[in-house]
Every structure is written in C-alpha cells, then in structure tokens.
C-alpha cells in the first residue's frame, strides 16, 4: 500500500475511533413533540387508572407488580395527598370525573386528620410528615379553585398555620411533627419545596393571613442554603420549588428575582434539561447496557413538572426568552416519553388484571401510584402551557 494512502487510512481510523468513543457517551435522544390530543388521551387514561384503583375507604392501590399480578401493599400519605392534588388539577383542566375520585380519596384524610400542638395535621401514628400536609393544602386549594367551594377553608387555614409553625427561623422546614408534643424535626429534600408551594398558594387564596412571610423565609433558604446545609449533591432537582416559583409569580406583589435566584434557576433548568436528555437516550437495545433501565415514571414526571412550571412563569414575564425554545423542547421530550411509555388498553388486555395496568406506567414490572401522579401533572402542565402560549401542537 502506498505510504500516502496508509497515512490517509490511519487518519480515518482515528476519526472512527474518536467518533466511536463519543457515541458511547452521547446517544441519540429519542425526543419528539407529542400532540395535544396525545396529552389529553394519556391524561384521561391516568385519571381512569386512579378511578379503577381506589377502594371504598379512599385508599389507592399503592404498588402493583404487573408480571405477578400482585398488589404489593405499602402506603405513603404524602403521595396520597399528591394524587389528590393531581386529580383536582385534572378536574380543573376539564377532565370530568377526576374530582369525584379526589373526593373519594378525601375519606382517608378525614380518617387520619389529627390535632397536634401546632394545629391540624394528617397521618397515622405518633409522628406525621409535614410534606403530606403541604400537598393536602395544594390539593384542597386546587379543589377550591376548581369548584368554587369554600367548604374546607377553615381546614385550609388551620393546615397553613401548622405549616407556618414548622418553618424554622433560618427558613428550613421540619419534615415531621410529633403529634403529642408538637415537636418538629428532621429534613427532607422534597418537603421544603412542597411547603413553600403550599404557603405560596395560601397567600394567593388568603392574602391577609400572613402566609407570605414564612414562604419568603423558605424561599431564601431553599435558594441560598438548602443544598449546602442539608448536604445535597447533586443539588435537589426541585419540581416542588418550580411549582412554588410559578405560584409566587402570581402573587399580587411577586418577589423580585435576586441574583442568587437567577443562579439557582440556572442550576435547576440545567438539571431538568440534562435529566430529560439523558432519559431520552434510554431507547432499549444497547442503551440498556450503557444507560440502564428506564427511570420511574414518577421521576420523568417531575422533570415535566419542573420544566412546565418554569416555562409558565418565565414565559408569562418574558424572561429567559433565549432559553424558552430549549426548555419547551425538553418539556415536550419528557412528556413524549410518558406518552409513549404508558400502558394502553391494547397492551393491558393481555394482562391478568387489565384495570390495574391500563393507564399506568411500569418500570421493571412495578408501578406505584406516584408514577401516575407525577406523570399526570406533567401532562397537564404542558397542556396548560400550550393553551396560553404559542407552542400549540394540535396534530
């Protein structure tokens, strides 16, 4: 072989090697833009799953194994309240019947309401999780918005006062309350954002009740201190914080965005975007070896929730206009993954218990009710963003 040709081939071999190396690290991203009809259909099926998987006592099927057709038991009151929030969100978005399921789920709340030294709370046992109270506030407040009913206003205010009492001086939020003593303690990566969101909503609903002050304290802590003090690394991918920022932006006197909040927002948007890109690379085949199995639908749903909420308030204010295209693409991507991964009626028909599987999302054979909850909320948020923005896709 002539030396010049050998040199050329050697160089081309180097190109193949480098491109091969990068292909191991960066895979094609199976992203697409789901149509609004797909969002509606997928959300309807998720609501249907909740309707099929709630018992007379108002409890949902918590975890289900599709392969063995076994209800695996367990329960989380925080997730129960989260499901109620999503169902009221669906009802408000026009999915008739979702509110009825949420009303049925309220039976569990009535059963487990307790009076603590700090005020009303919710949960079994001697200690109750504050995150459950936060999401219950969000659910009941959304019910109020969806139905116009003020039936639970007294409870809402009471729960809000309980939440305000677990906000510490530095803005950190206690994760648990001792029912008997009212002592509150512990931290949770997610409860801080949940309670910030709950108090933010309460300030919108009851503007003179003073819920804005503890909310502002939490917001400062969440942005400036939370990840460092609570030693979260990587930083918490905070979809609840995104809900809170979207809500606070609708306050009559929304807080100005500080430099620290801009930095926090940069990190958050990057985290959501990276995770959406990574998850979209999980397309079976060889990617099972390089990327592992698909993430929980709950996890993918939180990406859609985080992105959807930030899109709503950034777009509303004309902020980060250079990023809105990428943010919309990532939100579309995360939600498209959910659309494509939901069990359809055609797939469920061959299952032993189709009503347990249709409309659900499974990972390694299991589903958990928060898979359906976060996915449903992500679908509804993207739908809401399209309805108000210019990114409508109707095909």
């Amino acid at each position, binding site marked *: 072989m002539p*030396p*010049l040709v050998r040199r050329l081939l050697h160089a081309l071999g180097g190109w193949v090697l480098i491109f091969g*190396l990068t292909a191991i*690290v960066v895979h094609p*991203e199976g992203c697409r833009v789901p149509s609004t009809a797909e969002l509606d259909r997928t959300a309807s099926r998720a609501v249907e799953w909740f309707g099929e998987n709630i018992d007379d006592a108002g409890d949902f099927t918590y975890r289900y194994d599709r392969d063995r057709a076994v209800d695996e038991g367990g329960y989380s009151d925080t997730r129960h309240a989260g499901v109620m929030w999503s169902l009221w969100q669906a009802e408000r978005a026009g999915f008739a019947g979702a509110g009825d399921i949420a009303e049925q789920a309220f039976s569990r709340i009535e059963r487990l309401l307790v009076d603590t030294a700090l005020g009303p709370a919710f949960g079994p046992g001697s200690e109750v999780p504050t995150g459950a109270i936060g999401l219950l506030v969000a659910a009941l407040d959304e019910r109020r918005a969806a139905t116009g009913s003020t039936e639970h206003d007294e409870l809402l205010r009471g729960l809000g006062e309980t939440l305000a009492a677990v906000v510490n001086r530095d803005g950190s939020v206690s994760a648990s309350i001792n029912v008997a003593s009212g002592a509150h303690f512990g931290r949770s990566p997610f409860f801080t954002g949940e309670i910030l969101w709950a108090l933010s909503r309460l300030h919108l609903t009851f503007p003179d009740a003073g819920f804005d002050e503890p909310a502002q304290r939490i917001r400062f802590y969440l942005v400036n201190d939370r990840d460092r003090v609570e030693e979260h690394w990587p930083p918490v991918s905070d979809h609840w914080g995104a809900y809170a920022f979207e809500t606070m932006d609708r306050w009559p006197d929304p807080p100005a965005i500080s430099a620290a909040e801009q930095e926090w927002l940069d990190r958050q948007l990057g985290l959501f975007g*990276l995770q959406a890109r990574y998850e979209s690379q999980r397309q079976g085949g060889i990617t099972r070896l390089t990327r592992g199995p698909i993430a929980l639908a709950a996890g993918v749903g939180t990406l859609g929730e985080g992105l959807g909420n930030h899109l709503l308030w950034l777009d509303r204010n004309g902020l980060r206009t250079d990023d809105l295209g*990428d*943010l919309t693409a990532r939100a579309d991507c995360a939600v498209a993954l959910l659309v494509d991964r939901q069990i359809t009626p055609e797939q469920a028909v061959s299952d032993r218990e189709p009503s347990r599987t249709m409309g659900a999302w499974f990972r390694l054979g299991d589903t958990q009710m928060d898979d359906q909850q976060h996915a449903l909320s992500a679908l509804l948020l993207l739908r809401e963003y399209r309805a108000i923005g210019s990114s409508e896709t109707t095909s």
Partner: protein
Amino acid sequence: MTFLLLTLGLVVAANPCRVAGTRPDRRPRDAVLVAAVASVVGAAAFAGLSGPFFGAIDITGSSARIAAGIAVAAMGTKDMFTAPPDPTPALAGRWAGLLPIAFPAILTPAVALLVMAGAADRGVVPAVTAAGIAIGLALVGLLTIPERIRRGGQAVVGIAAVGLGALTTLDGVYAI
C-alpha cells in the same frame, strides 16, 4: 458555550505544535496558503452541516458539546503521549497543504465536532470565526515553532486540551 471557550478549545484541538510537525521542507509558505483555504473551507462545511447532522442523529446542541468536549480531551490525551507527525508522506509541493497539513493535522475529529457543536450553540459565523483563529494560529505555529520544542509543546497543549475538553463537556452537562 462562550465564544472564548469555543476559540480556546479549537486552538488546542488544532494543536499548533502538532501541526508544526507536518511542515514541508520546501516552500512551506505555499503549502500554508493551501492549508489555510482548505482548513477554513472544511471548518465552514462542518459548521454548515451542524444542524442537519445533529438533527439526523438526534443529538441536541447541549449533548453535542458533551461529545465535542470528550473528543477534544481524547485528542489532547493522544497529543500528550505521541510524537508530532512527520512531514512525509505528503502530497507534492504546495498540495502538502491539503495532505497532511489541513487533513489530518488541523482538521481532526475533535476540531470537526467542536466546530459543529459551536455552530449548533452560537451559530455558523461565530463557529467559523473561532475556527479561523485556531487555524491561523496553527499555521503560524507551523512556520515558526522550532523542531526542538515541538514534542514538549505538543504535550503541554495536549494537557490544556484535556482541561478545556473537560470544561466543554461540563458546559454541555450543565446546559438545558
């Protein structure tokens, strides 16, 4: 990705000390002229093809930066441990500017991926401008860097390429 990071990344990816190894013994200035034109045209082609290429293989601009950063770091690692290339075999006369100067010395896969990633992020014109700066420096290096410091210089620039490749990758990781 800032324009500075893009430019520095391209400068170290088109390692001037490595390119200097391909200096022809005779009439190097003629070859440099051909190499300059060929390299800039090549870089412009990569920049122009960036959108269709990444679209066809389903890669976002952010992930393209991860790929480019890895390629730059890999090239840097190679430059740290290998000797500069020889001037021969080469095309005759001024056409040595095409082979081996423009290709494969300047237009490496790292340069190609970084130009495409830069074009996807910042646009074709900034990417070609940055590539032009890097190509210019590489060719100035070809004419001026003495043989005795080429190997050491290539390794030092290779170390910088590993660092800048890592920064480019992180830029893609932290991007939306």
